[in-house]
């Protein structure tokens, strides 16, 4: 085992854990915004998938990772608009619509990929990182955390921005009211429908960027069904973190590190059942967040459509 622990190997493992964690972080905090406003966004996986597809197309055709993220976000928004139409405006069942959107996105992106890329499977070149001076030279950790595409720094910064937004601004209060007591928000003259609409669209954008990150930086290619449950893990992180953006950050980081740990255990040649090793990320995240999140709460009106005047 010790012979394996070279700087190259450890750095690659930790680098991979951050890369795996960022899409979960983006999707998780996006879901948290939506849940805060009272919309349980089960369609997160579908938003990520469409974001991965549109993001990859943009990055590939325009040769720009930035445009890839922008179009990835817009792809997620396009699915979120359907969620808004069916769940916020028409008040249909959020779980059913979310599942339908995910299945629809799965089929649509597979079909588009089939017509567009299934004979060529184009891959993107390696991303040019933004190296942060001084801290980027720290052994092991410098390359892992500070040799990254700027989107990684923005994703982490967004967590702290949301902490501030939720706690210190009227926007945060409105979101919370829309999820807890939507009628009270309505009485104050703030539109519940509008608040929830913007929240779901923001979720779509962040999930789309997360999907684009997974395709463009995580894999460097788009293949059908490639989100592979990351959207559902994002939902779990958001629900277990119960309103705390920083806990989503911890959960995503823990999940990424656990994934790398599973690889490390295998590479080191531990002869234990792979299923046991691969349960590790899921088990660790659930146990940690349940222990830490016992005193938190979910919005009272979560997953309930709001119709003015209805009790």
């Amino acid at each position, binding site marked *: 085992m010790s012979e394996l622990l070279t700087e190259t190997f450890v750095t690659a493992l930790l680098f991979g854990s951050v890369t795996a964690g960022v899409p979960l972080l983006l999707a998780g905090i996006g879901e948290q915004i939506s849940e805060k406003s009272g919309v349980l966004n089960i369609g997160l996986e579908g938003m990520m998938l469409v974001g991965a597809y549109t993001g990859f197309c943009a990055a590939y055709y325009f040769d720009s990772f930035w445009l890839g993220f922008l179009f990835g976000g817009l792809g997620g928004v396009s699915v979120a608009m359907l969620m808004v139409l069916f769940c916020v405006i028409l008040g249909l069942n959020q779980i059913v619509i979310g599942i339908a959107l995910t299945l629809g996105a799965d089929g649509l992106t597979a079909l588009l990929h089939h017509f567009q890329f299934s004979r060529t499977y184009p891959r993107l070149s390696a991303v040019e990182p933004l190296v942060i001076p001084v801290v980027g030279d720290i052994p092991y950790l410098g390359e892992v955390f500070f040799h990254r595409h700027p989107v990684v720094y923005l994703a982490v910064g967004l967590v702290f921005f949301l902490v501030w937004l939720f706690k210190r601004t009227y926007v945060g209060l409105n979101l919370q009211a829309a999820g807890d007591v939507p009628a009270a928000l309505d009485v104050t003259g703030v539109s519940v429908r509008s608040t929830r609409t913007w929240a779901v669209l923001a979720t779509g954008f962040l999930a789309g960027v997360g999907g684009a990150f997974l395709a463009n930086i995580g894999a460097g290619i788009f293949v059908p069904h490639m989100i592979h449950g990351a959207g559902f893990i994002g939902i779990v992180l958001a629900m277990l973190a119960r309103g705390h953006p920083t806990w989503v950050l911890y959960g995503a980081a823990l999940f990424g590190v656990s994934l790398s740990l599973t690889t490390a255990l295998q*590479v080191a040649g531990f002869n234990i059942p792979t299923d046991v090793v691969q349960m590790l990320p899921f088990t660790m995240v659930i146990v940690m967040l349940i222990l830490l999140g016992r005193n938190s709460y979910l919005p009272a009106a979560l997953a309930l459509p709001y119709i003015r005047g209805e009790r």
Partner: protein
Amino acid sequence: MRQTLVAQISKMLISAALIVFGLGFSALSSAADLKAIAVLVPEQGTDYGWNQQGVDAARAVAEKYGLEFMPAEGLGYGDVRPTLRELAEEGASLMICHASGYNTAGPEIAQETGVPVAIVDTPQGLVEGLVTDYTLSGHDGAYLAGVLAAHTTRTGSVGIVVSGEPPSWNSQSAAFAMGVKAASDSTKIIYAVIGPAAYGDAAGGRRVTESVISAGADVIFGQGNGSSFGMIQAVETTKAVDGGKVWFIDVIGDKTEIDKGHLLSSVLWDMVPVYDAMVSDLMDGTFGTRGYQIGLENDSVRLLKSPHIPANIWNELMDLRDKIISGSVSVDNISDAQAVRALMTSVDINEG
């Protein structure tokens, strides 16, 4: 008493004649009723791998027998019962469930509709006339790939990255490891599974492969469906620990068309003989009485010859292939995941 005996013998003879006639008629009607072959695959049949080989082979066999071809692609890894019922209603005479995830649904729908199905990786699941199995393994070919990898590595380490641990992947991983050790006992083997059924997880494929490369491997034997593309991306964008190129050995399909200079070889599978035999058995009325396999002897398993393989090594591999076919070198078919994992640290060679 004598009359009774004669009457009983007569009845038995008539019954036997009727049974023989009935069986013959049944076989004839099976052949006559064979109209269409359906194949169900989890991803699109354009993946240069498992899905494409399955779809292409089914199409070729349908054409050979003049049958309608009914592909159902991109079905994912969930419940395919509705699709199976639909295909049965549309007149499929044989439904090939080309994913281990369909092994529960396939036999159920076969019982329900009476339409024969073929499933994978379940040799114990045969039901006469209704369910057959093809547990394919290119382990003999993977053994050759292992020898090739051992001759190619500069760093003295080779990697095996798999998207799951189905029997087919396991037997090839084990055979690859045995091939490596047969050619060079000192070569280190690094084995990693991306995740539970991570067949389409391209990002996971890339992440795990990059870790395996950073642990020293400069030849990657990758088994993964969609996740293979993540492995290839890792191979193309990551330098080996010695700063040189990393090679990739693929399985099942031929990705030469999309290669950027890293594809060393592939353990190619041809499923045409398998599906051909299934249709033939269906016509003969023996469907569901045996399973099907592929092998080196009829080239349904073979090693892809890329321009990156030196001629002398290729010749050595072909000599070894002949020895495997003749039986002078035998390669164990180890399909149990736990046994494969144990093998990565202790490989026994079975020659002679």
